[in-house]
């Protein structure tokens, strides 16, 4: 692995300097200035120099073509310099009286009269030493955070170098200002710069957002939550509901879906995932979206049974996480994606898409603007069989709601199956705003789905990136070398924990990836055929609930249910 850091192209761009100067100027003038500075601080000259900083890679948490996350140790002692222009108050008594209560002011008559002097400060010989956390994503731009105070020393030379008192004072003040600039403002500046660099429509987007702000609110209110048919027929306890209860329940996820996505987009998404699953070479391009191949590493553990995980509950959560295909859209700088795993369902593609497409109107726009992070879960909702198995009675499968087709001899919903199965459409689409939705009533409703506990598990995984992910991964030999370095460091605040374990994205279209993938599929298929044959054999003999739930459906009940059972 090699990294190529380019220092000179950044500094060669004249436009870059202009922009950086503007941003530095605004940043310097934003924080309250000390009373000695009586004018705006103008960045007169900025030069990053020719000596690049020394970077030492301490850890790389995430690496892909479109995103990167790592910790660096940076040392810089280059020849960069910065020239500032401002005007300072030279009378110490004047600055002394500033921001002092007038009640106890000595009220000098003329001794405090001001003398403003134009001042030019040159900051040079900047020595930095810092631990940097760098998070890059093509959508969210570049986020750079200093873990410690980066400024080691710098030389301040000004017009007052001959007066030691003023020089010392300036040195002290400027170091203080620079520290706050580095810690607080610089990350924001870099983020904005990077967004402008990689997202040309960033600015236009922002303006559009501003303009539509009022409109959104109105439209959001106008969404009718009852206008779509229910998707799942189960309540928060996992019990099967009858038709009347279904209708009353329908104002959560399902209704949201139709109002958020247009049918066209969903069809495209469906084609995309299916192309991935069916070895089709055609991948439709979707704007502003990054498609990551899901190698299906974790679900193998179930089907192959080659390894016995330590705790069944962990395994369950993992497998269910693994089987879902995640589409991650991100807008803005929100961290903390999560994806809500849901079960595959038997609802056919057609009905699903039509149901989803019902409300594809103007409302979808408003939501698209509002939500910052969207996770489209292309995995199908849970089957009715699952509900049955969860309720602990394998014989009542026929009691499932009639609205959903029941296939008794349901083919296990695994990615392995998907190779053979006709493509399924994305069924469950959820919006997730990491901050808001946790507390929102809609979130509270999510448990009404069979995936209640799974979603909870997924959230735990989001909050704490460490748990449970390692076990199933170790069972997949094919993709193991493509996997990222393990994710033990909790330095990253839990960003899209489940999805980060995906191997290299399929969008890269490289020959290597293709060959590896095809190799994987071939292996998978062989595996699957063998397994199914075994299943058919064992079906007659093994009738127990556990075997059924494990064999017939890869979708196991959520951990909590499992524990209860």
């Amino acid at each position, binding site marked *: 692995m090699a990294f190529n850091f380019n220092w000179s192209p950044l500094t060669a761009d004249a436009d870059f300097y202009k922009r950086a100067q503007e941003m530095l100027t605004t940043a310097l003038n934003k924080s309250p200035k000390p009373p000695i500075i009586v004018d705006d601080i103008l960045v007169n000259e900025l030069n990053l120099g020719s000596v690049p900083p020394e970077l030492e890679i301490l850890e790389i948490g995430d690496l892909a073509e479109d995103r990167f996350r790592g910790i660096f140790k940076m040392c810089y002692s280059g020849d960069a310099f910065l020239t500032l222009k401002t005007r300072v108050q030279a*009378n110490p*008594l004047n600055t002394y009286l500033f921001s002092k209560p007038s009640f106890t002011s*000595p009220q000098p008559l003329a001794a405090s009269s*001001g*003398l*403003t002097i134009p001042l030019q400060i040159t900051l040079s010989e900047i020595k930095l030493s810092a631990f940097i956390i760098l998070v890059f994503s093509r959508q969210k731009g570049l986020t750079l955070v200093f873990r410690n105070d980066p400024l080691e020393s710098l030389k301040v030379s000004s017009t007052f170098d001959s007066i030691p*008192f003023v020089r010392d004072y300036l040195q002290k003040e400027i170091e203080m200002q620079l520290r706050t600039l580095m810690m607080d403002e610089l990350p924001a500046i870099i983020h904005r710069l990077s967004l402008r660099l990689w997202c040309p429509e960033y600015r236009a987007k922002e303006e559009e957002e501003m303009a539509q702000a009022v409109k959104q609110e109105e439209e959001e209110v106008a969404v009718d939550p009852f206008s779509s048919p229910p998707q799942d027929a189960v309540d928060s306890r996992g019990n099967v509901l009858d038709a009347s209860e279904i209708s009353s329940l329908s104002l959560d996820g399902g209704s949201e879906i139709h109002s958020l996505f247009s049918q066209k987009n969903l069809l495209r998404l469906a084609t995309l995932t299916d192309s991935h699953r069916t070895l089709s070479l055609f991948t439709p391009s979707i704007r502003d979206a990054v498609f990551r191949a899901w190698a299906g590493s974790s679900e193998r553990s179930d089907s192959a049974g080659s390894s016995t995980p330590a705790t069944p509950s962990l395994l369950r959560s993992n497998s269910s996480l693994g089987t879902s295909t995640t589409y991650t859209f991100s807008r803005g700088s929100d961290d903390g994606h999560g994806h809500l795993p849901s079960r595959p369902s038997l609802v056919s593609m057609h009905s699903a898409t039509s149901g989803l497409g019902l409300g594809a109107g103007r409302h979808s726009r408003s939501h698209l603007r509002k939500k910052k992070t969207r996770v489209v879960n292309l995995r199908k909702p849970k089957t009715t069989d699952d509900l049955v198995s969860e309720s602990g009675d394998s014989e009542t499968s026929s009691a499932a709601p009639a609205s959903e087709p029941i296939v008794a001899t349901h083919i296990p919903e695994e990615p392995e199956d998907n190779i053979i199965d006709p493509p399924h459409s994305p069924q469950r689409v959820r919006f997730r705003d990491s901050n808001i939705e946790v507390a929102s009533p809609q979130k509270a409703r999510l448990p009404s789905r069979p995936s209640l506990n799974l979603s909870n598990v997924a959230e735990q995984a989001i909050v704490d990136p460490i748990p449970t992910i390692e076990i199933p991964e170790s069972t997949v030999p094919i993709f193991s070398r493509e996997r990222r370095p393990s994710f033990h460091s909790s330095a990253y605040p839990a960003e899209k924990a489940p999805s980060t374990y995906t191997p290299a994205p399929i969008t890269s279209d490289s020959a290597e990836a293709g060959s590896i993938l095809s190799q994987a599929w071939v292996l998978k298929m062989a595996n699957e055929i063998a397994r199914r044959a075994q299943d058919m054999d064992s079906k007659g003999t093994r009738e127990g609930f556990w075997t059924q739930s494990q064999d017939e459906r890869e979708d196991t009940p959520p951990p909590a249910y499992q524990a209860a059972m």
Partner: protein
Amino acid sequence: MLEFMDYIQHAFYDVSRWNYENSYSQLTATARALLDFETPRGLRLNLSSLSSPNFATSYAIGSVGLVDGSLSYLYTSLPLQTTSRSGKIDLHDVIHGYRQIQELRRPEESWMWEVWQGGKRTDKRDSLLYGRLYLPQSTLEALYLRRISPSQQLKLSAVSDGRLRNGGTILALHQYDTGKYSTETLYSTDGGLLGLRGLYNFGPDPREGDIEPPRTEDRFYGRFSAGAEMYYGSLNKSGGVSFGGRFATLPAHKGVPLTATLTLNPLMGNLSTTYAVKAGKNLALCSKFDFNVYSYESEVKLGCELWRMKSRIPKENVRSMAAKLEWRLDPAEENSGPEPEEVAGVLKARVDQNWKIGLLWEGRIKELLFTLGSSIDMKRKDQPLRAIGLEIQYSS
């Protein structure tokens, strides 16, 4: 317009015969009153009362941003018989404009304060205590004023505020005034600032006898005063110096009253001159010119003050019934001089070289004293009106 508590404080100076104006810090009082007046912001209400001759309370509520207010209490050991009703207060006492320099008074001797009773001295030194609490900010102001002797006064002022460094500051000011000259020494805990101010009045010494006005109409009959101040911050090793002089005509001057000052800051190269004339009975004009010899920065300010008097309704001369019955005229009333004029309002205006205009209209409506002010920036065409405010005071 002076706040009620400042008005009471000035009344204390008057009653205790302290010449407030004979100080270097008051050298440019006229120019400050005419050019550097504060324009109120937002709405402000003051409710005050001098409930007894020794005790005064004042409540203020304002609306700058959110609602804020203050409570203040004042206690003085010297009974004040001053007018405290806002309907009766002479506006000249609460609105400071052109300050006519008075003849120096002969200072009291310390034996004048002695009160003997049964062979023992029973006189006490007069003191004033004042506290003010600003409510949402939780800022406390405290003042202790003590007349040590007829020529000395001690003033301790303190501010307690959690946002200040060290939680607050204390300023101690000792004033010594003999009439001919006055000195002030001060110490502030904030930065350990030490200060020294002095003012010397040229001319006859009031201690040697009452000054009698000149008989001939001199071209200028006035007084020249000169002074200096010096500050040194013992903690931050900084300081400041200024010199100043003033010539002001005295009330006996027959011509147009005028005041001219010159202040000089040799360290910072700042030169400031002010010139104020009382052009008419109700009109005062003032100008100020600042120049810095180091940075060549200059500043010009012009201001005026216009007092509007209520037109007096001439008293009708009606024969009394008793006089009619007796077939005679009323006895001729001896004319006891012109009645004191009622002030309708005072307009103050100032403008500087940046076309920043400040306007202030102060007056009385019924029992309420009001101050209506606005600051206008003509350079900003889109939004010239920078601030507008109304302050209403009621006191009893």
